[in-house]
């Protein structure tokens, strides 16, 4: 394997507390090493450039049944963004939901090397993995939707968390997934008959429990199983004015599970659940309340789900939410896709507009949250691709965060009412490169429990991004445009010690790995006739045909975890 030496770059590596220091990074056999033989190594002259670890995105819908239905749904979206075949790369289409190959290419060009696919219905896991195989260049993992799985609900209602943990361990292995995803707990089950739950203490129909039981139950299960990531939670009442209260109640409910060492819950795309006001007319930001809570407590982490003002496609497993969004009017397409015994799903194409008061306030909420939560290690930068905007709009979000000037320029173009309601003019904070590195790679890798990613210390995986930013000569807050441009196309991206982007162009196409957890419980889940019978009752697929086999993962990376039950 080639050796690479990156010389004289300004290294930003928050996990190793390195802030814009001029130093060399040596790479050998796909890892960061102390030094390499300078004569044999390939030298990259990074003087005047910023060197960071490869980006780690912890929430981006890039593959799976839902995503693909979204693709199929929107030829109008693809026609504006066609990608030509080259000698090296495959053809494809964009815009809001790029085809698989294009997804890999665009992430890599942005300097991202690891992406989490956060919502995979267990029954449709094979499909998700088939698509992930077709996303080159980046490492991926998926989170299985388990918050409304009948087996989990029954065990939690019975109070048998150990049994629940065993089932979940089995399911994580069977679907080759990485974390527990909970979407509108209880709500998706209710949606089976067209209903929804409206607070975390509502009864889930047909099951003797409440969303609170599901959330705390699964958080405990997550701890029992020693999962690297926390529960990944999409709260109840998402997208409803006044739902910041539900978000806070949810976080409060989890306080009891917190043991004090590391966070136990992650609220995803929190922008969509930080709405205050009683109705859409009185819609305003609840960011301050959420930020205050997060500043006072350490058991939760969040990602933003920033709106970027794009003609995008919203897609979530939260079927009832998409239906209420459709009912708001103005949408010509609505997809609902329920999955038996497990989950649900919905898709609506959505154009976030600056001149729309609610959309503009939503934009403001995302930024307010990221600026008002003091500790950047609690925050991850996402757009909930493609919900808030496509992932290749990330650099725009960076600019809004590191430059007050950029924020103000956009706010000026926003709806007047939204401008008045926005808290942004009162916020002076501007992210530094160091903090940006935290919310895009270091912090996210830490949240995900990926020890060898998100930093470029010795022993880490050699995933490196080099951007054309000179922290010594540029004031990023003032000259935000060139920096934004630099972030949208890395000069170099190195994946596992191989240069994949050179001079802003793709030079090598290689497959990325798919990470999955093999959770070993002390006593495995009993697979007896009783379970098989139940299985036959619950699903329309035979037990033998249900699990994802090795055939479905081209380049697997199995991570074995010893559970404490």
């Amino acid at each position: 394997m080639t050796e690479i030496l990156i010389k004289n770059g300004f290294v930003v590596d928050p996990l190793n507390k390195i802030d814009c220091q001029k130093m060399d990074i040596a790479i050998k056999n796909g890892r960061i090493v102390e030094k390499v033989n300078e004569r044999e190594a390939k030298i990259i002259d990074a003087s005047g450039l910023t060197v960071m670890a490869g980006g780690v995105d912890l929430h981006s819908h890039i593959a799976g049944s839902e995503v693909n239905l979204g693709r199929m749904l929107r030829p109008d979206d693809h026609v504006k963004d066609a990608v030509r075949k080259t000698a090296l790369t495959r053809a494809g289409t964009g815009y809001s939901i790029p085809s698989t190959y294009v997804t890999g290419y665009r992430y890599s060009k942005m300097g991202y090397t690891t992406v989490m696919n956060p919502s995979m219905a267990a029954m449709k896991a094979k499909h998700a993995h088939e698509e992930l195989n077709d996303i080159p260049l980046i490492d991926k993992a998926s989170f299985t939707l388990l918050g409304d799985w009948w087996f989990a609900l029954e065990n939690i209602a019975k109070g048998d968390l150990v049994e629940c943990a065993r089932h979940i361990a089995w399911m994580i292995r069977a679907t080759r997934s990485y974390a527990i995803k909970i979407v509108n707990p209880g709500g998706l089950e209710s949606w089976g008959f067209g209903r929804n739950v409206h607070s975390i203490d509502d009864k889930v129909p047909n099951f003797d429990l409440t969303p609170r039981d599901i959330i705390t139950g699964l958080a405990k299960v997550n701890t029992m199983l020693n999962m690297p990531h926390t529960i990944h939670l999409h709260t109840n009442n998402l997208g409803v004015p006044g739902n910041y209260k539900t978000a806070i109640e949810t976080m409060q409910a989890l306080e009891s599970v917190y043991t004090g060492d590391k966070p136990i819950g992650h609220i995803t795309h929190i922008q969509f659940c930080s709405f205050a006001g009683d109705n859409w007319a009185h819609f305003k930001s609840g960011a301050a309340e959420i930020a205050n809570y997060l500043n006072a407590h350490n058991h939760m982490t969040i990602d933003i789900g920033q709106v970027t003002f794009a003609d995008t496609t919203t897609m979530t497993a939260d079927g009832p939410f998409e239906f209420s969004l459709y009912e708001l009017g103005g949408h010509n397409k609505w997809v609902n896709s329920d999955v038996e015994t497990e989950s649900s799903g919905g898709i609506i194409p959505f154009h976030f507009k600056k001149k729309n008061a609610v959309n503009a306030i939503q934009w403001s909420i995302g930024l307010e949250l990221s600026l008002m939560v003091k500790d950047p290690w609690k925050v991850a930068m996402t757009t909930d691709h493609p919900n808030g905007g496509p992932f290749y709009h990330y650099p725009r979000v960076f600019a809004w965060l590191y430059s007050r000037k950029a924020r103000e320029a956009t706010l000026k173009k926003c709806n007047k009412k939204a401008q008045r309601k926005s808290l942004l003019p009162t916020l002076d904070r501007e992210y530094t490169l160091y903090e940006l590195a935290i919310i895009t790679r270091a912090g996210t890798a830490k949240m995900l429990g990926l020890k060898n990613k998100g930093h470029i210390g010795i022993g880490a995986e050699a995933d490196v991004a080099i951007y054309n930013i000179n922290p010594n000569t540029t004031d990023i807050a003032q000259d935000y445009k060139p920096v934004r441009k630099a972030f949208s196309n890395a000069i170099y991206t190195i994946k596992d010690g191989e240069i994949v982007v050179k001079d802003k162009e793709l030079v090598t196409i290689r497959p990325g790995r798919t990470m999955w957890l093999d959770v070993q419980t002390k006593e495995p889940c009993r697979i007896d006739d009783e379970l098989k019978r139940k299985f036959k009752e619950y699903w329309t697929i035979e037990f033998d045909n249900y699990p994802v086999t090795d055939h479905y993962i081209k380049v697997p990376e199995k991570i074995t975890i010893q559970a404490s039950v």
Partner: protein
Amino acid sequence: MTEIIKSVVCPICGCLCDDLEVTVENNEIVKMKNGCAVCEAKMVHGYKSDERILEPHIRKNGKLVPVSMDEAIYKAAQILTDAKYPLLFGWTSSASETQHVGVELAEELGCALDNCCSVCHGPSVMAIQEIGIPTATLGQIRHRADLLVYWACDPWSAHPRHVERYTAFTDGRFEKSEFKEYVQKLKGKASKKKVEAAIRRTQVRYQPPPRPQTAIVEAPPPTLAKTGRKMIVFDVKKTMTAEVADYFVQVEPNSDYEIFGAMRCLVNDQEIDVDKVGGVPVEYLKEIVDAMVNADFGAIFFGLGLTQSVGRFRNIEIAIAMTRDLNRKTKFVISPMRGHFNVTGANTVFAWQTGYPFALDFSQGYPQYNPGEFTANDLLRRGDNDATLVISADPGAHFPKSSIQNMMKHPLITINPDWNAISRLGDVVFPAQWCGIEQAGTAYRMDSVAISLKKVVEAPKGVPSDEEIIKRILNKVRVIKAQKTRKDVTETKNVENKKI
């Protein structure tokens, strides 16, 4: 040696039943359990037919002669690279692994790519692209649905286990089977038919009953208002499915759009000023709509009777619009009855690689989508393409004459397990394994759930999988293209040298 293999997946229709028990003796399927008649016909008898292609053939002097695999691959690759605009069609009875390579081949050739969807549920896909679709996996319907509507489809004949596995005859968590009642009803029907047949036989010459000019619709039965599972069938003729249904509504041909429109009005509490719509009295429609609104969970399944009759994708669009409106009052889903076992897979695989589900064109170097322009029949009837590759499909038996006539003007490559109509017409004919019997792979059920097909017997010696054939053609195409470029380069160099 006898071996019993359990949980085998049936590679016939979009139901993809995966509970078959197959008995294999000496590399031959001898018996099967759980399969329907269609499944048994293919898996126990059909796949062993004498019509099997066992080696590649090339047409020489008008006659198909057996050749080596290498020669056939080379010939196929040559045809495809020499052609200006080939069409790759079929794919729906192949595993998704094959479809996956197919897109790559189309991209490499810069040609048109289409699947059988364009002649079956293409209009459904277009309707979904117009307004979306509220749908669910089949299990959701099994557990919850208490009202099932089959519209312009006959699952009893075309998807024989659909009713039994996924809808009216299964026990769900919240809705129980109506099996007993139906069986009695069926038995009654069967004996009635027997008597009718006996009477027919006594007559010297059977006179078919005169065809009714207008549809005669019976009044809705009182059972429509009961709780528990109910099944309503809308169709232009009384099919077997209609016989077992609680209520059969015979509609006039090509009037589905109006009926949906009227029902949509009724769902939205609007009044209709006519007595009959599409041959169905409005008062009956009102009762049906009442049953729909009062259902806890309703499901509509529709077939080719909607997609291929007057109105085409607009029929589906209004059906979806009605379902959408019903969701304001209760929970309702709608789902197409996909035919070939992996036609959903073809849509899925094409979509994730290119963004579009069918009717693709790569002539510009990037994927383009336009049903009506790049759909197989439209291309063929205009005579736009100058070579065709047909894989795991039989347009020879199903396409219009004009399409086939144009297809025959240019070289034709076929990849099929047996000598079907299109294989006999081919210029290069490849043998292939039966996907799901001799070849493992992935298929997508009609509700787009991926299921792994199993390999239960070995293929005859020398018969490769279609995936392997496509892969080899792709490699050969690349080699020939590279040679051509080199040749072009040397030629231009020679020309330049001469100039100097």
